[in-house]
């Protein structure tokens, strides 16, 4: 194999413990676990704050503070405190994931039409039913939007795991840089970018099917028997 074969097209790079599939799997693992932890923390807190309106300063400030923390710096601090391992990486990535999910969950719930909530309570829904049957479905586009942006950030940032000796696509970047193999660095960057795009498309698909057409407006007005809008324009209230 000559040096002019691009890294990605060299079959020897697609097998073995340091092959791209293995690195990709590890990378996805870090991303997935960090996302799950972030959701487990941010979603309940965001739902509570959004539903009750209590502690909204927390949602806003935690969001801003979290955003301004450099992940690499935080990771080094954690490693200094706890030693090497997966836990410091997980903490650093979770800190990255929490703010966008928390802020979007809170904002999504706060923006739900108050008259729908008033009607829900007035018809006898209990607080839990108001939350799950009315507020969450109406806030879903915003909540999922936050999840998507969190996923994008963490999938790109999970490369830091390699800097503390773990696996993941960051290996291609770190190892490539250390031996001046820029082909490998570029390959790593490309795979991370493609992964980010694929992940975003998948989450977009989830969003498409999870959000009610009544909220997203998707597919409305194309029903058989003609669109709704022209029909109501003809005779708004005598139909």
């Amino acid at each position: 194999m000559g040096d002019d074969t691009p890294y990605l097209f060299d079959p020897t790079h697609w097998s073995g413990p340091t092959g791209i599939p293995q690195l990709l799997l590890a990378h996805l693992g870090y991303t997935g676990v960090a996302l799950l932890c972030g959701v487990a923390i941010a979603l309940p807190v965001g739902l509570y704050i959004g539903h009750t309106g209590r502690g909204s300063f927390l949602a806003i400030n935690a969001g801003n503070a979290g955003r301004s923390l450099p992940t690499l710096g935080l990771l080094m601090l954690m490693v200094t405190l706890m030693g090497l391992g997966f836990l410091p990486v997980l903490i650093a990535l979770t800190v990255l994931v929490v703010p966008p999910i928390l802020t979007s969950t809170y904002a999504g719930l706060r923006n739900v039409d108050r008259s729908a909530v008033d009607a829900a309570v007035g018809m006898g829904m209990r607080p839990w039913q108001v939350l799950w049957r009315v507020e969450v479905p109406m806030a879903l586009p915003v909540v999922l939007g936050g999840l998507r942006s969190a996923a994008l950030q963490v999938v790109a940032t999970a490369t830091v795991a390699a800097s503390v000796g773990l696996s993941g696509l960051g290996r291609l970047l770190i190892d490539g840089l250390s031996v001046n193999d820029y082909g490998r660095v570029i390959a790593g960057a490309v795979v991370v970018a493609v992964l980010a795009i694929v992940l975003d498309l998948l989450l977009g698909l989830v969003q498409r099917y999870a959000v009610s057409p009544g909220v997203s407006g998707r597919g409305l007005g194309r029903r058989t028997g003609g669109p709704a809008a022209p029909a109501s324009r003809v005779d708004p209230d005598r139909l």
Partner: protein
Amino acid sequence: MITFEHIRKQFPDGTVAVDDLDLQLPTGQITVFVGPSGCGKTTSLRMINRMVEPTSGRILVDGEDVLAQDPAVLRRGIGYVIQHAGLFPHRTVVDNVATVPHLLGRNRKERRRAAVELLERVGLPATFADRYPSQLSGGQQQRVGVARALAADPPVMLMDEPFSAVDPVVREQLQQEFLRLQSELGKTIALVTHDIDEAVKLGDTIAVFRAGGHLAQVGTPQELLEHPADDFVREFVGRDRGFRGLSFESAAALPVRPLSEAGPARLVLDDSGRPVCWEGAGVRGGSAPVGGTFTQHDSLRLVTDLALSSPVGTAVRVDGAGRADGLVPHHDLVDHLATRRAPA
């Protein structure tokens, strides 16, 4: 029957929204709470289903103290309609209507059947069942809101400015159909509005609130218009209350002239005797449409309006089949209005 006993509501900031309210809302009737903004009418309404908790006093619905009941269970038994309908945008029309039956645990098929039936009852076609609220006009959404409130067939309905977010033409239709529906259903209804015309039109009883949460007057629309309790009520019911008061007086006792006494103008009839137009001297352009007619079951308000707007100053009375059977020139009407209260 809904009874307020010494109800007082003071908000944490010290504002007294309702002060020592004693009021009874008769079963099967529409009681309208009306008053300027900040008078406590909406707060009073919302205390019935415990959306607002009173500071002191009791509210009884059919003899049972609402404060002794689980708020969620209480609310499922009381219909609730609000200004902008407050439909759930993520649910179809039929699922919106079936909200309370769903909460009550009725099965899906039964819920859907009942909901579609209700849609037709409020004047929406069954084909609307699977649409989403965003595909409906404001007036249609409000109809769905009313259907949703009726879904579990509650004996009591609370309506907070239900028709004020739609344009005047649609509002008029909704009000008419609401009255027709109520004549079939006979619910005990509390309705809040800031519009005295709506109150007069819809209310069997009107409770006029004044700022600070005091009742200024309670009575039938006619009592309010004819005998306002004080200057506040007089001011509130408006300057043309004399004219509006004519809505409550029947045209049955109004003397009519035979068709031959139409004066210089002539009323043209079709083959079956229905009025078509005015013709002859004094009619601009030689001919003008009649515009409208009344029967002896209509109100003096309509007759007055017809006489004033007629091209020849004469209202036309018709019988049940629409045939012209008498004329009321406006000077006769004025004489009748002047003497109608004089002892015979």
